């Protein structure tokens, strides 16, 4: 009796395990739900989302939305699995940092250029100028609608402790010299502090950046293709004259305009400067994973970021150190002075909303997007929530958030557009000015290669080898951690040449020439 009982229990346990084994293989439940369009957005569902959906059903164009929110960490894998498996989705968020480049090349998304130009979706068509639409083509087609408010990637700035700058008699910082004085003062007087906090991957990042606009006016474009290189075009921007990788010997620049020939303006000067400024970083900067919090925690006197982070930075700093004052130093001089044509743009979005090729509801989906772009009111419903409850309008282009309101929608996944921008009313006037300047089209100078995307699928082996070589010193260089950066660059270049960079250069040259020929035909 006892023996039988034992057998039964053991078998039951085995059975449970076996079922457990197999259950992992079950098919996922299909997202399909009749009439609605199935949407994947990145982020977590905003608090109060259901109220927004209810309101949308009331005033919307009659297209039901079935939105699934996917956390950023899972997004790449989930997109990959669902779309390659051909699951039933009609609208998904994607970006070059996710699967956009691969999926566009593989025909996973519906080309939208004919829909946009058909005139059936006038509001959507108006969302961007023809030039911008064109610049966002991937491999000859429009595979996604860009979500962008500005043509830039934010205004790069150094956030610093104004209270400390005042204490040491430096005041408002408006130049690299003053910034250096500030760092020296911190080094001399605040032994527990690091003058400048930087993160491991980015290092000095946008500091001492090369003058992209100046170069573009001289028909030179800097790009990354197995290391950074400068592409010299002819005077009419119709053909490639030469491509030279950063850190090359002066002789390599023979075809470039006079002032660039010593290679100093192409990064060499910058890397020497970084080595010189290395003393303002912490010893372990290459392993610093969270530079933002050492600033907010009072350990670093300054950090590099951009103006988009202003509100967050200010409130975090206030919370941790009530006496601290936040100062900002806008890095590029022309931007600091809000000059026109101060910023180079390729007019490309960093975020897109795409329609999978498997979707059978393309028209319905576009009807929704057209509605979203048809008025400030519709747009604000998604981006800011329900007016009166989640936000209140201040003037034409500002909003304020009532106490306790919690609706936060990640605009870059769906709603961002230059025609419908509202700013927080908590921004100080000078920052607001910069944010408005950031939106002006006249602040930008389009790159001669705007819209060009380097397709590396035929030179994978070379790209992989060269990328490994270039990445060997990349972070150390960005931290100024190598005593002789130019020698390192030269050596890296020599090794890259031996490992197939010539092939990459040729491919790049051909693709650019083809692109320019297409553009001008």
């Amino acid at each position, binding site marked *: 009796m006892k*023996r039988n009982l*034992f*057998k039964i229990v*053991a*078998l039951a*346990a*085995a059975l449970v*395990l*076996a079922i*457990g*084994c*197999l259950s992992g*293989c079950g098919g996922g439940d299909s997202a399909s739900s009749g009439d609605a369009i199935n949407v994947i957005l990145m982020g977590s569902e905003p608090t109060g989302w259901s109220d927004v959906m209810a309101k949308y059903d009331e005033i919307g164009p009659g297209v039901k939305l079935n939105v699934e929110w996917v956390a950023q960490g899972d997004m790449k894998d989930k997109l*990959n699995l669902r779309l*390659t498996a051909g699951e039933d989705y009609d609208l998904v968020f994607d970006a070059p940092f996710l699967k956009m480049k*691969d*999926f566009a090349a*593989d*025909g*996973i998304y519906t080309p939208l250029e004919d829909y946009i130009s058909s005139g059936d979706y006038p509001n959507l068509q108006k969302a961007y100028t023809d030039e911008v639409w064109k610049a966002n083509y991937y491999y000859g087609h429009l595979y996604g609608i860009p979500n962008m408010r500005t043509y830039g990637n934010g205004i790069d700035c150094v956030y610093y402790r104004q209270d400390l700058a005042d204490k040491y008699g430096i005041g408002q910082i408006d130049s690299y010299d003053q910034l250096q004085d500030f760092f020296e003062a911190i080094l001399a007087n605040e032994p527990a502090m690091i003058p400048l906090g930087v993160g*491991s*991957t980015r290092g000095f990042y946008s500091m001492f950046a090369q003058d992209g606009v100046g170069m573009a006016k001289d028909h030179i474009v800097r790009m990354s293709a197995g290391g950074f290189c400068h592409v010299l075009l002819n005077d009419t921007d119709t053909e490639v004259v030469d491509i030279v990788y950063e850190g090359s010997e002066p002789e390599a620049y023979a075809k470039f305009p006079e002032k660039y020939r010593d290679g100093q303006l192409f990064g060499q000067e910058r890397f020497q400067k970084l080595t010189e400024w290395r003393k303002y970083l*912490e*010893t*372990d900067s*290459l*392993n610093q*994973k969270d530079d933002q919090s050492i600033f907010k925690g009072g350990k670093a006197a300054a950090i590099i970021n951009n103006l988009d982070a202003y509100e967050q930075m200010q409130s975090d700093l206030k919370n941790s150190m009530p006496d601290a004052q936040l100062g900002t130093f806008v890095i590029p001089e022309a931007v600091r002075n809000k000059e026109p044509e101060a910023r180079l743009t390729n007019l490309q979005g960093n975020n897109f909303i795409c329609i999978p090729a498997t979707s059978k509801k393309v028209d319905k989906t576009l009807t929704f997007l057209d509605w979203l772009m048809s008025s400030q009111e519709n747009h604000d419903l998604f981006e800011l929530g329900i007016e009166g409850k989640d936000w209140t309008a201040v003037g034409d282009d500002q909003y304020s958030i009532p106490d306790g309101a919690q609706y936060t929608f990640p605009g870059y996944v769906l709603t961002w557009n230059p025609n419908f921008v509202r700013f927080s009313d908590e921004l100080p006037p000078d920052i607001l000015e910069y944010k408005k300047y950031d939106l002006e089209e006249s602040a930008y100078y389009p790159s001669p290669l705007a819209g060009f995307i380097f397709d*590396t699928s035929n030179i*994978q*082996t*070379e*790209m*992989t*080898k060269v*990328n*490994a*070589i270039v*990445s*060997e*010193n*990349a*972070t*150390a260089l960005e931290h100024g*951690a190598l005593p002789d950066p130019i020698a390192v660059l030269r050596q890296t270049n020599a*090794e890259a040449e*031996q*490992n197939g960079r010539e092939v990459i250069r040729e491919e790049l040259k051909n693709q650019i020439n083809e692109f320019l020929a297409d553009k001008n035909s």
Partner: protein
Amino acid sequence: MSVFKAVRKKDGGAAAVKKPTLVQDIRRNKWLYLMCVPAILFFIIFSYIPMAGLYIAFVNYKPSTGIWGSAFVGLKNFEFFFTSKDWITITTNTLFLNVLFIASSTIASVAIAIMLSEIKNKWVKKITQSVVILPHFMSWTIVALFSVALIASDGLFNRIIVGLTNDPNKAIAFYNTPGVWPVLLVFFKVWQGAGFGSIVYLATITGIDQEIYEAAAVEGASRWQCITRITLPLLKNTIIMLTIMSVGKIFYGDFGMIYALVGNNSLLYPTTDVIDTYLLRSLQENTNMGMTAAIGLVQSLLGFILVIVSNKIANKFSPDAALF
């Protein structure tokens, strides 16, 4: 327990006469075989069936066309690695670090197991055991945060060094000094894994017949002699067996650990760059499933060959310790 005893008795009797066929064996021990089903299913589903996917290493994989629809490219996916200038350095690093890890973890695990077995007080033993096993359950990301507190330029180690020598210049910039990293990695590896690794050894020690120790004590053996003459020799087979098993993964760099601790710090690559971190660096801009699968295949094949070879050697010198 009665089931097993009965089976063993029957089996023992039969084997002496004639080896049973598989069918006979299954019929006779149907309950035991039934209970193996989950494990067998697990390996079939998660280890054997996916092997078909190794084909991906030989194609230019495109998700839209699927594995079987992608163009066959032969050995092209292997080319980038074996023609790169660094592959020998990286492979050497991987092997060197893994040999260090296996040796030091084994020694530390055995030492911990013996020490635990020598503790007589039940409570002290239980608490110590829990404390040494605990680090195993911490993710490397968390260990990486600890490591900063320990080895940063103003971390614990450097404070101790500066405190003892009274000379701030004696501090070691660990994050800028590649030479110290093999030692540091071994330190963290042992700290994290040795306690957990001691469990098997401890179980083996517990299984040793107490009468052997009693007899030795009667003969006047000291405690140290008992360890070196009885415990260690009896642990030998377990040690060899577990070592063979870890050799199978010897060409895999411990990515979770090394990437969490070293990250993108290129100053440390000369001693810490292993096959897996190299792959990340070279492929993160242009992901390529085929190339990744190709290197994975090489790592597994080399590991497999090493397992077979070391098992052969074990068979020759200590047949009981061999896996098969």
